[in-house]
């Protein structure tokens, strides 16, 4: 900006614009700035995770990773994603289908409702679940009468994760399906295909990419969720401690290598998600 600003108007509008975009100096400065920001705020912190995790050597790192409660946390985190992502995929398809293919009263309201978990802090979600399903909560006495315990168990973690991540697939699909419109479905229906067949053969293939993308985002968010899960998990080691909770526990306990080793696992899971996304985009 500053480089181009020296001679504004001297060459008219077009060269001015070209100089901002293509001038070698401006380009170097802009790319350099973006690079520095990326390195300082994104790359280095991630590298630090691995440096710290390996600070006492590979042996200590492996020992920290195969520590039973850390391994269990990895397993629980994966299990949660395995349950939550499919549920949110089904919910997302249903919601997007309903919103983009039908006209009804309160549609705007429904869209707003779907987006609530985006704007509500996860800890609020956790606490509201506690006040609903907890012993002293709204459903507490009913659940206690049947000896059903939801809070502080694996189902609680899945429920809270589901709430926090419920908009991801739906949002992605609504955008995709709104762009595509109804024409293909209408054509299929008018040619005599049943509703279900139309969905399978027309709607689903069209939304494929949006669906995969939404599921991947949802997956990344589920594995990293801390606030809501922290409230409802009870943090029982080896039972209800997810990877993010395990990281906090180890960090609070001055086990730097343990905390960073667990953090490196979570980072690797996230990187794996991103690689999967990149791979999918290339195939597209």
């Amino acid at each position, binding site marked *: 900006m500053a480089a181009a600003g020296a001679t504004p108007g001297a060459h008219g509008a077009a060269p001015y614009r070209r100089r901002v975009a293509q001038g070698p100096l401006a380009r170097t400065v802009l790319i350099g700035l973006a690079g520095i920001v990326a390195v300082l705020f994104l790359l280095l912190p991630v590298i630090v995770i691995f440096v710290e995790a390996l600070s006492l050597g590979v042996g200590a790192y492996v020992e920290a990773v195969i520590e039973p409660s850390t391994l269990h946390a990895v397993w629980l985190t994966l299990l949660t994603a395995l349950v939550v992502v499919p549920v949110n995929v089904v919910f997302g398809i249903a919601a997007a289908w309903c919103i983009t293919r039908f006209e009804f009263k309160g549609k705007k309201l*429904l869209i707003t409702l779907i987006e609530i978990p985006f704007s509500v802090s996860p800890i609020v979600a956790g606490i509201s679940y506690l006040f609903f399903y907890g012993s002293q*909560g709204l459903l507490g006495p009913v659940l206690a009468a049947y000896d*059903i315990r939801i809070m502080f168990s694996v189902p609680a973690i899945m429920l809270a994760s589901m709430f926090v991540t419920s908009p991801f697939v739906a949002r992605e699909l609504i955008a995709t399906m709104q762009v595509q419109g109804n024409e293909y479905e209408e054509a299929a229906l008018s040619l005599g295909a049943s509703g279900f067949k139309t969905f399978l053969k027309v709607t689903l293939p069209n939304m494929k990419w949006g669906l995969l993308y939404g599921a991947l985002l949802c997956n990344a968010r589920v594995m990293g969720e801390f606030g809501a899960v922290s409230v409802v998990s009870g943090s029982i080691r080896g039972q209800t401690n997810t990877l993010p909770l395990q990281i906090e526990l180890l960090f609070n306990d001055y*086990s730097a290598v343990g905390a960073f080793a667990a953090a490196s696992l979570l980072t690797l899971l996230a990187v794996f998600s991103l690689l999967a996304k990149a791979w999918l985009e290339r195939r597209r």
Partner: protein
Amino acid sequence: MSLRNLARLGLAALFLTGLVAGGVKANAADPAAPGSQGPGEILNVTYDVGRELFGELNPVFQKAWQEKTSQPITVNQSFGGTSKQARSILEGLQADTVTFNQVTDVQILHDKGGLIAADWQSKFPNKSSPFYSLPSFLVRAGNPKNIRDWDDLIRDDVKVIFPNPKTSGNARYTYLAATAYALRKFDGDQAKATEFVQKIFLNVPVFDAGGRASTTTFVEREIGDVLITFEAEVQGIRKEFGLDKYDAVTPSLSLLAEFPVAVVDQVADKRGSRAVATAYLDFLYSKAAQEIIAAHAYRVNDAAILATHATNFPPVELVTVEDVFGGWDKVAAEHFASGGLLDQAFVNQ
């Protein structure tokens, strides 16, 4: 409005039924070996930095219990801030025992949920506190500012680090210990004591939310001349960040910080785990356990064991909340209530 909620609820309910059914089945499968008097596992809920201590204690208990009863037992652990832990138990976390670092957070299990008896402090020795600690000082190597006692904390050239007493139980002990010292010094003159504590607050450059954050401020950001936290933490930090980089300083007078324990009656009775839960807490008073606890820099009541770790435990005069302040209820009302003595010392800076 209700459309999406209904859909979600329906889905969630469907799923839950499956999960809960699965969970219940799993639960039914693992505890209680045939012919046993109780479940094969108990849950001990404890404070956030107790991982190493209980990680060492639990296997010893598990082995002893199995030898005695020939029943295998697993002690599961939950770690977290004890106020949050207490809230979780009130909301249904199935804790057989609690081992906390705040008396008030055990008391709340009685007050808010009736989960334990009112006289829980008389169920185990030493007011149900198998070990204790006290607010103590951590200074930089060689003690360059020559900090020896609470009086040094009001000096102009000393920067003091401890967390915000409005949010941290740890810092409340520090506040009460400093107040107890000042009350002694000024012959019980509360106004002068408040002024003394206020001067300490003025020397605190940053109030972090919790003990761990204050440690980071002191150790990693290298702010301040003295960190005040529990003596056990002081030793833990030295062990973790370098015995040669920090020195421990014990003030002349401090406040007894109990680490109270209780069997959560309602849960234990329902699960049939009272015998093993009680045995677990009794075990914390045994010679074997007290030795481990003392090695983690908590003070124990067994004089012989205390003596073998004497270098870690310099003599200090300990006063109690009951003696100086008339109990936790009074402390809550007079000091920690909104507009109370803590606010007067804290806000006027």
